[in-house]
């Protein structure tokens, strides 16, 4: 029991953080926002999946993947393919020259459903594919790169190139993928209309629940021995290797987990927003996901959620009111986070918020003896890293 409390929930501080986040997602936001705004928040929260995955792989693993948009997009496309097939039943598409296939295929003179679309008629397969397709791609990339000890900057550039490739491929193969417009006009899931307000509420809560689940899972991974190995690898890879661990396997594992988490976000995105397009796959969204994690704090799972919420809220607000200013702000945010707040919001809290809390507490307590203080200072960094998780 105690172990679960300390590891899975992260001790007292972790429980409080998680409870606050859950209260915000499940109670505060639905209470104060109308369904349109809440749906937007739901969309931001799907990006939080990607941000959490980046905390795992970048914050703890030290591997900067610029391809999280690829996995997010693949998850979203898998879901979109199922919904599209349901929306293009022969009755709904009777006016097409080939009824029963998605409209964009008909426009591109396809007369038959391509083979890789066939399995997406089945909902269980779709759910499986949402995790399996990105997971498999991540496994292939991971094996090819980490086994050859490609790391650091090279990994980032290559994952970025993969994001570029997938975008070009989707845009270029219009008849098979819907091209630049993406897969649109998604209406029902098993006959359940996903565009109604009640469906949006339900999807929002499912999304929030999944997100909390993902955070718990990530915390479980990070608090296990594997999490400690990840940190060790990030800081001194060679030493871990010399201690007899196969470093690449751990990297492949965490990369696959991160890919699947992003993909879940993508699938929820499709459900809540009602379409999927290549503009959520490419280089720009992938790198923006990194900034969500960076703003929240690259070492903090909960911070990543706040990062995604704040940056996306800012993006919506500024691009509605001052479209000119938005890119300046976004660019400035990248630079400021890297140069002045490398640990993001969570880091700011660790540095200032905690001290204020301590001060409030210490007003009521006697000052601690100096000997204990130095000891505490020595353990400070590792303790901070643990607590931030």
């Amino acid at each position: 029991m105690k172990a679960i409390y300390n590891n899975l929930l992260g001790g007292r501080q972790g429980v409080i953080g998680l409870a606050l986040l859950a209260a915000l997602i499940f109670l505060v936001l639905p209470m104060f926002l109308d369904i349109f705004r809440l749906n937007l928040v739901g969309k931001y929260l799907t990006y939080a999946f990607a941000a959490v995955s980046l905390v795992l792989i970048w914050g703890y693993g030290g591997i900067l993947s610029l391809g999280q948009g690829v996995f997010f997009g693949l998850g979203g496309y898998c879901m979109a393919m199922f919904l599209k097939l349901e929306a293009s039943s022969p009755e709904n598409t009777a006016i097409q020259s080939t009824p029963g296939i998605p409209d964009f295929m008909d426009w591109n003179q396809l007369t038959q459903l391509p083979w890789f679309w066939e399995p997406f008629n089945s909902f269980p397969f779709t759910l499986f594919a949402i995790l399996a397709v990105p997971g498999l791609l991540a496994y292939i990339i991971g094996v090819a790169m980490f086994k050859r000890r490609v790391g650091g900057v090279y990994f980032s550039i290559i994952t970025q190139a993969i994001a570029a490739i997938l975008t070009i491929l989707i845009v270029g193969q219009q008849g098979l993928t819907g091209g630049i417009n993406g897969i649109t006009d998604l209406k029902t899931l098993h006959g359940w209309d996903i565009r109604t307000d009640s469906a949006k509420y339900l999807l929002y809560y499912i999304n929030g629940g999944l997100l909390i689940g993902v955070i718990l899972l990530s915390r479980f991974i990070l608090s296990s021995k594997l999490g400690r190995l990840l940190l060790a690898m990030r800081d001194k890879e060679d030493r871990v290797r010399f201690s007899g661990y196969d470093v690449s396997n751990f990297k492949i594992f965490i990369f696959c987990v991160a890919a699947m988490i992003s993909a879940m976000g993508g699938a929820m995105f499709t459900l809540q927003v009602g379409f999927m397009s290549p503009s959520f796959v490419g280089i720009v969204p992938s790198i923006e996901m990194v900034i969500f994690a960076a703003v929240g704090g690259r070492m903090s799972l909960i911070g990543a959620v706040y990062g995604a919420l704040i940056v996306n809220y800012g993006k919506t607000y500024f691009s509605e009111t001052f479209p000119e200013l938005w890119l300046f702000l976004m660019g400035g945010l990248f630079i400021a986070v890297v140069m002045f707040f490398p640990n993001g919001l969570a880091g700011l809290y660790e540095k200032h918020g905690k001290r204020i809390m301590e001060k409030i507490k210490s007003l009521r307590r006697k000052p601690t003896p100096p000997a204990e203080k130095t000891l505490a200072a020595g353990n400070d960094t590792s303790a901070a890293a643990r607590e931030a998780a």
Partner: protein
Amino acid sequence: MGGYTLTELGSIFVMQGFAGLSLFSVLLLMALGLAIIFGQMGVINMAHGEFMTIGAYTTVMFSVLTAKFAPGFIDYYFPFAMLVSFLIAFGIGYFVEFAMIRHLYKRPLDTLLATWGLSLIMQQIFRSAFGAREVSATLPEWLLGSFQPTESIDIPLNGIFVMGLTVFVTLGVFYFLFKSRWGLRVRATTQNRIMAGAVGINTRLVDRVSFALGCGIAGIAGAAFTTITSTGPTTGTLYIVDTFLVVVFGGAASLFGTIASAFSIAQAQSIMEFFMTGSMAKVLTLLTIIGILMLRPEGLFSIKVRK
């Protein structure tokens, strides 16, 4: 080969090959600056494309001003525009290194994010200053038209010009890096920073000048770019991934590798473009590069360094 005569096929081959050479020149011009910044210094400059755009806009401005105030000068403005493009990009690069990059040498992944932010800001500055529409320079007479050795072969002059310029700049970079005193300092610093400092090289100044020089070369690339196509605020981002792949594929620290990889990527792309759609050709080229990089992570040509 559906209905082509042998001479026609020959002409297609020559022209397609020349299209590949033009692409090669543009890629190489872009990649040379990055080969210094990324290859030698290890800094990931995501804003490299924007430094190219600076050069392109400078040239466009130059041509507009010349056409307005000194129409007789229009045939000669181009070399000056190129020089000014270089100087402006050099100056901005010098400042960026001072303000940002030098604090981040120990955190390469963070440099990537910071320079990405820089590129966003620069794009928005371009958009605010020059508008979102693409603009193009008025080209001097001697760059227009084409060279026709036979009836069916048609080679545009601006392509030849860009190729000549590329050769010139490449030789210049070679001379700078391998024959000049400055190049010696740059190579010493990248190979062993502490020792280089110990023998009296001002490594900080070397960093700053190298970075600025890489940016300046991107500026020249931008100037050359205006002779081929028009310039928009986001022109730079279109090429940044390709450029990085050229440098990585060639082997980061090898200038010769950069040239070889720019050549093979450009030729592969333009030959495949003849057989399939442009986007599929691009996908296949990129996939091949990634495939080869997985087999040879250090790139085509690598310098063996003990680490």
